[in-house]
Every structure is written in structure tokens, then in C-alpha cells.
């Protein structure tokens, strides 16, 4: 239930067995079926979700009902509407499962207790947040300065499984492209 979660935890921070046992008491194990929502916009985001198995996505819905995918989360990744979670404000993201998934959830009260009880947990969160910030920085830079082909190649480097597990129209949405444009980009890459 928590194997990958603890593996990732220990990779980042050197927790003692006692600390790991304390953390375990605060985790919510959750199974989500394909297409089920973890979060709908307007609700306050109650959890940070770690993907033990499966694929989740976070997306917003535009005026004409178009979905704009903000983030995917494959095994080992965290996903949340962080602003909503930390500020207890209504979420702007929807989060649902693209496959039947197993998650490890940390609720807001659990998160706040862990920050008090296990100081190294705060280190773990700091490392996660800075990692996420770096990823966001890279992504912003690539959107602004790289060609579409370069961006697509970067994407397949960061998420190697993504082509198999996510429909192409969703990859296009994530990149901010129409499916047709993405098709052209992919043809251009394979054509070389």
C-alpha cells in the first residue's frame, strides 16, 4: 500500500524507523477508479496525493468547456491543488484518474500534525516544493523559448511512459496545442 511512498520518502530524507512509523499513522490509503474525481473545482482541496500506482491529472476547464491540463502524475509523483490545500480556498483544479489508481493521501490536519511532530517531514516537504518549483521554472522557460519539437522531446524524457498511458489529445492539451498541431509536431520529429 505504501511501498513506493516510503521508498521516495527515504530517498529524499534520512528518516528513522520511529519517524516512519509515526508518518504511517497519518496516511490515508485511497483507491480511485478510472475517471473518478479526487477533487472537483470549487471544493477545498483536502489532500496532497501521492501516486502509488496509476495516473492522475489536474486540469482546469475553460469558458467553452475546453479542458486545460496543468499536470499529470504518474507513479512516484505528488499532485494537488496546492493553493487550495494550503490556503483552504476553493480549488481551481479538477483532479481525476486516467487509470484505476492507488494513492497515498495526506490530509491537511495530518500535514499540520506531521510538521509539528516530525521535523524531518518539513524537510521532505521543502524538497518536494523546491523540486516542483524547479520543474515549473523549466517548463515556463521551455514554453517561452523552445520549439514545439524540442518541448515534445523534453516531455517524453521527463515522462517516458506518457505516450503509452495518456491519450494524445491530453498531451496536446498539456502542451497548450490542438491535437492537429501535436500530430504535425510528432510527424516532424519522426520524419527527421
Amino acid at each position, binding site marked *: *500500500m505504501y511501498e513506493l511512498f516510503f521508498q521516495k520518502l527515504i530517498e529524499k530524507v534520512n528518516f528513522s524507523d520511529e519517524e516512519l512509523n509515526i508518518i*504511517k*499513522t*497519518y*496516511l*490515508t*490509503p*485511497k*483507491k*480511485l*477508479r478510472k475517471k*473518478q*474525481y*479526487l*477533487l*472537483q*473545482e*470549487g*471544493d477545498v482541496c483536502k489532500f496532497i496525493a501521492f501516486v502509488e500506482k496509476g495516473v492522475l491529472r489536474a486540469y482546469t476547464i475553460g469558458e467553452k468547456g475546453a479542458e486545460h491540463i496543468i499536470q499529470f502524475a504518474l507513479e512516484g509523483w505528488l499532485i494537488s491543488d496546492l493553493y487550495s490545500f494550503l490556503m483552504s480556498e476553493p480549488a481551481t483544479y479538477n483532479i481525476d484518474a486516467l487509470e484505476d489508481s492507488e494513492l497515498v*493521501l495526506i*490530509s491537511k*490536519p*495530518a500535514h499540520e500534525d506531521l510538521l509539528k511532530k516530525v521535523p524531518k517531514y518539513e524537510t521532505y516537504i521543502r524538497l518536494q516544493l523546491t523540486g516542483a518549483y524547479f520543474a515549473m521554472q523549466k517548463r515556463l522557460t521551455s514554453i517561452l523559448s523552445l520549439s514545439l519539437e524540442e518541448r515534445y522531446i523534453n516531455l517524453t524524457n521527463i515522462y517516458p511512459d506518457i505516450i503509452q498511458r495518456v491519450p494524445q489529445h491530453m498531451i496536446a492539451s498539456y502542451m497548450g496545442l490542438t491535437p492537429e498541431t501535436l500530430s504535425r509536431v510528432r510527424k516532424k520529429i519522426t520524419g527527421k
Partner: protein
Amino acid sequence: MQTKQTIAIIGATGNMGSAISKSLAKGNYRLLLKANDKEELQALVQEINNSNSSADVEGIECPRDAGWEADIIIAAVPYEAEKEVAEKIREVANQKIVISIANPLNETYNGLTTDPGMSAAEELQKLLPNSKVVKAFNTTFAAHFATPVIDGQRADAFIAGNDANAVETVSELVSTAGFNPIVAGDLAVSRTLENMQLLLIQLGMKYHYNWLAGWKILHN
């Protein structure tokens, strides 16, 4: 809340289990019903789907899987069965709301089998130390769910628990079921609530309420 919560009802085909299942199917919940008798379970799922086309309800065999998918778990089982249910769901019920509905009556209905100063709910909390056990639906008879308004009055349904958020969530469930939720206090108040129902059951037998009776607090 917009996001549909998943509720696992263990013991779904029992009197209380089926009453709870049918009434919660009206709300914005996804129900996973678990019962030992497969045929009875199928029949219940069918009945709910027939009477409510927007119901999101499914029979599920394994209580652990049901608990794993669930956000809220209702142990709609007698007191004697709570321990076994707790064993099966303990891992997957971590940090989740678990509702105890049991009234630990003895065989002759003239007393409770729990020690004085203890309650079925608190015993369940000990078995599930990392879950948020909430006492609810123990002061409402099964027949009451079909008619929550008796004599023009909507019955009160008492709730007790240590976690404020959990208690609030359960209050919404109780409302959906058609009752007037009253938060009675922390989990220790379950002792009173379980004794209250012992009294109501005894009165019902004495004065022939036919299992259709409830509580209503008169106040300013």
C-alpha cells in the same frame, strides 16, 4: 461538497444496512455495498437502482477493497461483529471516518453487554486507533428511514465523535438520510446514546411502537 464521496457500507443487507443504503443512495455519494449473501446483495443493488435512476451503487465482495476505495466506512453490523469488521478494514481505514451504529444489547434486551463507563463506539475506536470513529444512526430504527417524519415531526438523530471535521461530515450524511442531526458531544457520549436506545427498545416492546419510534428534543 461537489466531489462525490465514496461510502462503504459493511453489512448492507441487514435491516439497518439496507435502510441506510437506500436512504444514502439519494445523496451525492457513491455507495459500495458489502454483505455476506451475494444474492441478497444483488437484489438490494437492483432495488436501489430501480427506485432511483441516479443512484451510484455497487455490490462489492471484499470489505478491505470496499474500505480502501471508501472515504467513509459504515459498520452496519451488530456489536458482536464489529471486532471482525475492524480487523478486516483496519489498514485501509487509516485516517478515515468509520461509523459505529451498534447498540450492544444483551439477549433479553434488558441491558447492555458493554461495561458501564464504556461504549461500543469507544471499543471500536480502540480497535481502529488511527480512524475517526463516529457514533451515528444508533438512535434511529431501520423502519424510521422510510418515514423519518412521524406525527409531523422530523426525528432527531444523535451523533458523537472526537474529530470535529468527521462529526460535521457525518451530520451531512444524517441529513441526507432525512433526519435532524444533533451533535451530542465527543465519543464518550456514545455511552449515553447506546443507553438511550436500550430504553427506547424496551419502551417499544412495552407499548407496541412496532419499531417505528424515535427521539425528538423539545426546546426553546
